[in-house]
């Protein structure tokens, strides 16, 4: 092959490889990462007498986006809601609201895991809001785990 075209081919291949490396690869930031982040405090909650559920509610959120759930909690029980984000999550928060949408607990630390704990003082509907306050990408995985005692 003509040496000119050979050099062009090598140059273009190199640039393409560099370019591919610079594209954000969301496939590497996984749901398992989010679950691992949430389960980081599993043993701490267990040692405090909480029954930690092995199940997770999961989803993805874009940077700045949030999602909100309803849930029945039972009066007298202590609850811990733990949310973990994948490695693209820089700051994930969780807020708990009562039936009148008054804020009753929140975790606003700047990290990949958020925990809100509270004692249910009535039986009925409460609301849980998860917010991807800051992320390096969109479509960031989150996993919500809960514990009660």
């Amino acid at each position, binding site marked *: 092959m003509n040496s*000119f075209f050979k*050099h*062009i081919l090598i*140059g*273009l291949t190199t*640039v393409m490889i*560099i370019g591919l490396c*610079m594209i954000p690869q969301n496939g590497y930031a996984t749901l398992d990462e989010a679950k691992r982040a949430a389960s980081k405090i599993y043993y701490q909650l*267990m040692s405090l*007498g909480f*029954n*930690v*559920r*092995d*199940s997770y*509610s999961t989803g993805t959120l874009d940077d700045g986006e*949030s*999602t*909100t*759930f*309803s*849930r*029945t*909690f*039972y*009066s*007298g*029980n202590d609850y811990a809601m733990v949310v973990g984000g994948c490695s693209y999550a*820089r*700051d994930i*928060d969780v*807020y708990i*609201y009562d*039936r009148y*949408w008054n*804020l009753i607990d*929140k975790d*606003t630390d*700047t990290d990949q895991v958020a925990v809100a704990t509270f004692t*249910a003082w*009535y*039986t*009925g*509907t409460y*609301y*849980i*809001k998860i917010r991807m*306050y*800051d992320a*390096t990408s969109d479509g960031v995985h989150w996993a919500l785990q*809960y514990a*009660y*005692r």
Partner: protein
Amino acid sequence: MQRLFLIVFLCLLWSCASEGQSHTSQNQTQQAQKENKEEGPEKDYTISEADKQQAAGNYLVPSPGEILSALNKLDRVDWTQLASFNQNANYENKYARSLNLGVRVADAFVAINAEDAESFGEMSTIIFDLGQKLGIGRVISEKRADLDELAGRGAWSDMRAELDNVQTEIQSEVEALGESDLVVLASLGGWLEGLRVVSGHLKDNYSEDNSELLNQGGLIGYYAGQLDGLGSDATTNRLVSAVRDGLESIQSALPEGEAAKVSQESVQEVNDVSSALISLIEKG
């Protein structure tokens, strides 16, 4: 020719350098935004109408262990008198098996609260049998061994947590079989038995404060919606249809609005309806 190649290569290098600079600048902007977020005013916790609408459609279901745990804190409870610990595992269809699986899991929670190893062992056997008939015997078998080991040591608190996880495992395995309708029914069976047990205690030990535990209008609405969304085979099933009607009766027995007080008459009515439904489910 080589000069031409040099020019093309330099252009490519310049292009890469610009891209890199643009990324650095973007990173700096992101960093600045981050700092603003960290150092700025307190985060915004306000709720929008869109949040409220979203919450209405996103319901998270509690474990049957939770309501029993709450009752245990509020009152002295004679757990041994509250569950039937029915040992029937022979049901003609998967809908009856799923509802009964949920009921037996709730009864296993009652046995744990009663620290009754014998009843727990019986429920564990029935859960295993029903799980096998639903095609998830292998998974339950592994968990059962863990539970039996904990029961042998009398580690009741650990058993509660483990049973919660068994319930979760059952749901995800049934879901994996493509039977999401059965997940709803197993969950509903467990919730109904929890409601029957709690209302059974409250009707004989009425207290206005404790009866608040029955105020679960949101959850009843959720289950009613889930039943309405089941496949036609399930919705036309006699037992499923009876449970759907029973939910209406429970809802109308409770006062309107979750904040309202639950009267002694309401407690009695909820117990009557839930007992009749559990009896129907256990018969198959």
